[in-house]
């Protein structure tokens, strides 16, 4: 917790980084000022786009002492307002998993190259980003913590598989390489409480270190203060759980 007589400073800006296929993409970075060392955090924007909520979220992690980078996963889909670009990707059935993983791998490498990062890197995502955070924890090296918020379609039926998302992330559970925290609303339609049970059972089966927190009175996306799904009490508690987990796993 910050003290009122403590120095605090932050730098936040857009940068370039190498992503999938070594493509140059842009990313939003926020970091605390100072020599560190600070833990790193990859912040995966949600399906609706690389938007203001995610910039604020990136700065939020920086405020809590994390060097945070949010890669623009829609960089190759053109430029315009986050909403117009997000709508384009929505119409195309979402970003391909392989490309997203390549971009996230690039973001992890970018953080790990910094002299003021303590050698530990977490990954945070909500909605589709929650799914991608879990997927990254299973498929990529270099992660020390996964924060999955209501990752929809971690559990996917065969009918739900698409060319862009060809494998259900739950099938990779055995490869998860770091602790995970899951935040879920019990009124969510995806993931449903039953799907969260499946997800948890698979983690348990493979002996993974996890903690799941499920909230009554909350559905999908209950952290989003700009949407009707926002649930103040649950969101405040959820954030506390997230930061407690990060302190434990990344400091």
């Amino acid at each position: 917790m910050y003290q009122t007589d403590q120095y605090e400073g932050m730098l936040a800006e857009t940068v370039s980084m190498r992503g999938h296929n070594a493509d140059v993409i842009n990313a939003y970075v926020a970091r605390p000022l100072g020599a560190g060392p600070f833990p790193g955090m990859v912040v995966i924007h949600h399906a609706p786009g690389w938007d203001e909520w995610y910039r604020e979220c990136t700065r939020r992690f920086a405020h809590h002492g994390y060097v945070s980078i949010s890669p623009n996963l829609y960089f190759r889909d053109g430029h315009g307002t986050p909403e117009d670009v997000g709508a384009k990707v929505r119409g195309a059935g979402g970003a391909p998993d392989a490309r997203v993983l390549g971009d996230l791998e690039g973001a992890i490498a970018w953080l790990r190259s910094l002299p003021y990062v303590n050698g530990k890197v977490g990954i945070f995502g909500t909605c589709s980003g929650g799914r991608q955070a879990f997927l990254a924890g299973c498929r990529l090296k270099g992660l020390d913590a996964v924060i999955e918020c209501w990752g929809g379609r971690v559990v996917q039926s065969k009918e739900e598989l698409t060319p862009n998302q060809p494998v259900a992330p739950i099938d990779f559970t055995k490869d998860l390489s770091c602790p995970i925290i899951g935040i879920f609303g019990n009124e969510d339609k995806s993931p449903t409480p039953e799907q969260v049970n499946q997800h948890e059972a698979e983690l348990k089966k493979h002996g993974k270190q996890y903690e799941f927190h499920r909230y009554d009175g909350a559905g999908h996306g209950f952290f989003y203060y700009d949407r009707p799904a926002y649930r103040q009490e649950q969101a405040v508690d959820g954030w506390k759980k997230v930061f407690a987990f990060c302190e434990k796993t990344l400091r």
Partner: protein
Amino acid sequence: MCTMIAHQVKLEGRGKSGPQWFEVREANVSYDHPYDLPLEHALNIDFVNEALGPGARVAVELSVDAARRLVKTIEAVLAQADERGVLEDIHVAAGPAAGSSPA
């Protein structure tokens, strides 16, 4: 959730975005998160022209009931025009819209 339920249909038409008309070549129809309608999921239609970039977009977000009523209304209007013999089932060649395209 992000349903990723989306279909694209090729179209010939015109759409208005702000003061400008532009040539519509595609419609992206999805049942997924809307941006403005206060629902978790909506029937979203984006009339776009991919060649002009993401900003060439006329968007509507509808509740399920509204979407169903819209479909029925379109069918009813086309049927009525057909019955009256005024239906012009003519292919519109692609070309620039009367207004300049949005940036």
